[in-house]
């Protein structure tokens, strides 16, 4: 009698859990509602940008492609902001939104997600401190990135954040922002933070100016700047020193030999443009921070706009990302976005929302209506979304996400998170990090392709594994072949199969069962992961 009960109970439990699991996979599920966005006037800003682009397209006689499908726009945002693709779970939730509100809802969803601040912090850190491990003990990159992530998640105004970096004091552990200064220390030379390295970073990262080209000599290619400009700016970092109590200012002027072979001379601090914006009060670094972030110093806003644009599009509005002219003409939209950024308190989240809502961002990467194909001119003028190669960490993040049906994020199960971090690092190490040279498009290499075709990560993520792998789970949980194929496409490519694809795979799956069916679905996942569509932003 007792055995009977146990058997029935067991069967009932298994059936119930399977049913629940299936339901959770195939039906839209209640998703935590992101907080509503309270910023005002986003629509007006978007309209101004759209008008500028419409005029730009007309002037250059290019036709804008159609609007991209909502799932594709969401995929772009996920890749740009979180470094991974949307999960099937997220896609189902997005599907429940109305067409008009979907993208705004998606932005709110992503901006509230720690994956976004973590990923953006890492991307920003490349411009701020580079990718090197840096000086021993006195530089802690991880702490710096975590600090940056917290600031970005809290949506700290960008000017406040940058002032904190430039004026940072204290130790690399208790004041993580001080790592911005200590990373420049050359421990071999024992001269403390390097004024010239800091000046190079500062001008590129915050002003979009490559002043470091004239560090060593006047350069006929850059006749706008003189060597003196560089060193006068470097003089603001002269007092910055580093000791047992961390970074602090000391009474030491900046010295440099401007004449080749000449004597060291004391260089007075001066800014290379807009001298009227330089505050008179405060320490040298405080004055420098005030000048960089002054609303009148539009180069600061432009450089932020350009960087966020580049993260979202995979290509900077003005290329290269850290070299923007100080005088007009500017690319379409840049001045409007810079104005909006300044007027709304250097609100990075708002800037992301505005760009995400523009027509330029939402264009399809193919013409989208009727025949013909997209032209290089359309891509060049932002009239069609330009294809760009995904970065190694985006590829790794996407593979891991594609192998799971639920969202892998900070709230995901601990085992998945650990697995993800480890596997992602191994993969990136082998796949090759692109370093600081961001937004540089190149075809993939054969070792990279071999990793995608035969590598451990792909094998582990497509083989028979009911707990960890989407392919197996779909095979077991969905009896209907069309549904299984559709779910695979949505999971890996964030789109449904077109009829031809659907017909091809349905024919393959017809009358198959068990192992054979599982294998075909695993092959489908392998093919989706190895497709051009998966490896490129589009």
């Amino acid at each position: 009698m007792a055995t009977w009960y146990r058997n029935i109970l067991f069967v009932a439990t298994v059936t119930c859990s399977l049913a629940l699991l299936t339901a959770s996979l195939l039906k839209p599920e209640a998703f935590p509602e992101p907080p509503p966005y309270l910023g005002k006037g986003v629509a007006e800003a978007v309209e101004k940008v759209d008008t500028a682009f419409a005029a730009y397209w007309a002037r250059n006689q290019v036709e804008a492609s159609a609007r991209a499908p909502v799932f594709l726009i969401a995929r772009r945002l996920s890749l740009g902001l979180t470094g991974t693709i949307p999960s099937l779970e997220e896609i189902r939730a997005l599907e429940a939104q109305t067409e008009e509100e979907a993208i705004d809802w998606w932005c709110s969803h992503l901006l509230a997600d720690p994956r976004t601040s973590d990923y953006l912090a890492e991307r920003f850190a490349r411009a701020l401190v580079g990718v090197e491990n840096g000086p021993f003990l006195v530089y802690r990159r991880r702490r710096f990135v975590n600090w940056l992530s917290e600031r970005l998640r809290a949506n700290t105004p960008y000017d406040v954040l940058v002032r904190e970096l430039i004026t940072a004091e204290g130790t690399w552990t208790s004041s993580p922002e001080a790592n911005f200064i200590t990373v420049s220390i050359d421990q071999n030379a024992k001269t403390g933070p390097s004024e010239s390295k800091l000046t190079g970073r500062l001008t590129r990262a915050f002003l979009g100016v490559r002043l470091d080209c004239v560090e060593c000599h006047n350069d006929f290619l850059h006749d706008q700047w003189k060597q003196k400009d560089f060193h006068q700016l470097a003089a603001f970092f002269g007092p910055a020193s580093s000791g047992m109590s961390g970074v602090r200012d000391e009474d030491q002027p900046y010295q440099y030999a401007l004449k080749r072979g000449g004597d060291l001379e004391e260089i007075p601090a001066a800014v290379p443009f807009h001298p009227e914006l330089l505050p008179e009060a405060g320490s040298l670094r405080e004055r420098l921070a005030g000048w960089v972030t002054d609303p009148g110093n539009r180069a600061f806003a432009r450089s932020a706009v350009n960087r966020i644009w580049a993260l979202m599009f995979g290509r900077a509005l003005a290329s290269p990302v850290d070299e923007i002219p100080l005088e007009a003409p500017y690319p379409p939209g840049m001045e409007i976005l810079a104005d909006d950024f300044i007027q709304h308190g250097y609100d990075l989240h708002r800037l992301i929302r505005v760009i995400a809502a523009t027509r330029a961002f939402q264009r399809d990467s193919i013409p989208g209506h009727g025949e013909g194909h997209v032209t290089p001119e359309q891509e060049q003028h932002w009239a069609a979304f330009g294809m760009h190669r995904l970065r190694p960490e985006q590829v790794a993040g996407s593979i891991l996400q594609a192998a799971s049906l639920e969202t892998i994020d900070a709230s995901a199960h601990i085992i998945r998170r650990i697995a993800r971090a480890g596997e992602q690092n191994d993969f990136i190490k082998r796949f090759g990090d692109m370093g600081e040279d961001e937004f540089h498009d190149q075809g993939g290499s054969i070792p990279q392709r071999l990793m995608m075709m035969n590598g451990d990560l792909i094998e582990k993520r497509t083989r028979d594994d009911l707990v960890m792998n989407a392919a197996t789970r779909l095979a077991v949980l969905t009896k209907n072949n069309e549904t299984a194929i559709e779910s695979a496409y949505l999971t890996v490519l964030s789109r449904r199969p077109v009829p031809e694809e659907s017909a091809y795979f349905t024919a393959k799956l017809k009358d198959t069962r068990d192992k054979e069916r599982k294998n075909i679905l695993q092959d489908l996942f392998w093919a989706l992961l190895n497709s051009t569509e998966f490896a490129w932003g589009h």
Partner: protein
Amino acid sequence: MDYACHTPDHTSRRTLLKAVGLSGISWLTPLAQLLARESEAQGRADPAKSVILLWLDGGPSQLDTFDPHPGTKIGGETRAIDTARKGVQLAEGLEKTAELMQDISLIRSVTSKEGDHERAAYNMKTGYRPNPSVVHPSMGAILCHQLTDSAVEVPRHVSILANNRAGRGGALGTRYDAFRIGDPASRIPDVTPQVNDARMQQRLEDLSVIDRQFARGRRPDLEQNRTLHQATIQRAIQMMHSDQLKAFDVNDAPASERKAYGNTAFGRGCLAALRLIETGVRCVEVTLGGFDTHVNNHEVHMEKKKILDSAFSALIKDLKARDILRSTIVLCGGEFGRTPKMNPAEGRDHWPHGFSVAIAGGTFVGGQVIGATDPEGVKKEPRDKVRVQDIHATVLNALGIDPETEYMTSAGRPILLSDGRLIKGLMPI
């Protein structure tokens, strides 16, 4: 069009292409058309063709390897030994290498301005100091970019036992990145298909359905000028089925040969390097780590030299025996040297102001010594200083590549392959 660090047109009998017929992957663009490359580099009569870099990671002490100063204040416990070249001494522990000094030259006056491991390694491998606006290509990448090959199916730029500082393609493209492997005794990563040929063929057919859909409405030159996706897959398949992969497998080599290199991962790496060079690979980098001796400098160096001495000498001997030392340049060194002054922990710290690099093969004259460091360690500047970029210029020149050839970065900035000067003392008279 310039393509990959690979052969353009050779197809092995065993490639999947033939095994499965052309049916399934006929959508792949014809290779020859894609990969047509024009010119072999213009060079002198018979320049060297390949480079082996024995990378001593961490910064080996010049005083305990190639530039001993025994009996001085800075010399430490290390004794010097005579070599086959009269008047040239090496540090003890390099006895086997010493016997070959007729074939090896030493540059004892290398200087750089980089004292940090990462930056200095970048400097040594590329010939340029790190610069935020461009990633310079490493020597191996330049070599693959400049010289084409017709019959090599495996990657022509290989890095064995590398840490994260393996040679990179940088501005020339990721396709010139080194192919990284670990200890050659173990399986080569990623080249073994996870499924059988028939199922791989099924997968490629599935892939063609998805890629065909994606190509709709896109630029017709997408594959040729942007993604190279199908061509890369085809090359990957060719490599997976290539007989040349055997060159990686040192377990194939006769036991006596393996023994000469020493039973170490580095030794096996050097043996693999020899086999790869024979196969036509352009650049192999083999890393021996652990030279960052801030503590116990002498002991650690004695240990490391045991490994290095067997492998380095066996490699030079075998290259010579097979008559390919003339066409192969071997470099041995690390990112910088170590301080003349010993620290309180019996260690030596970073020293980029005069350290050693050994160089052999190609048209270089053996048994030469370029430059000298101060035996008292007082003068910082060595005599006849050689800058890191000078080594690059000299090696490129010996490979028949004009160091002053320019390439363009993505931002449209022209950069010289090397801005160094030729080291006269190494040139054939």
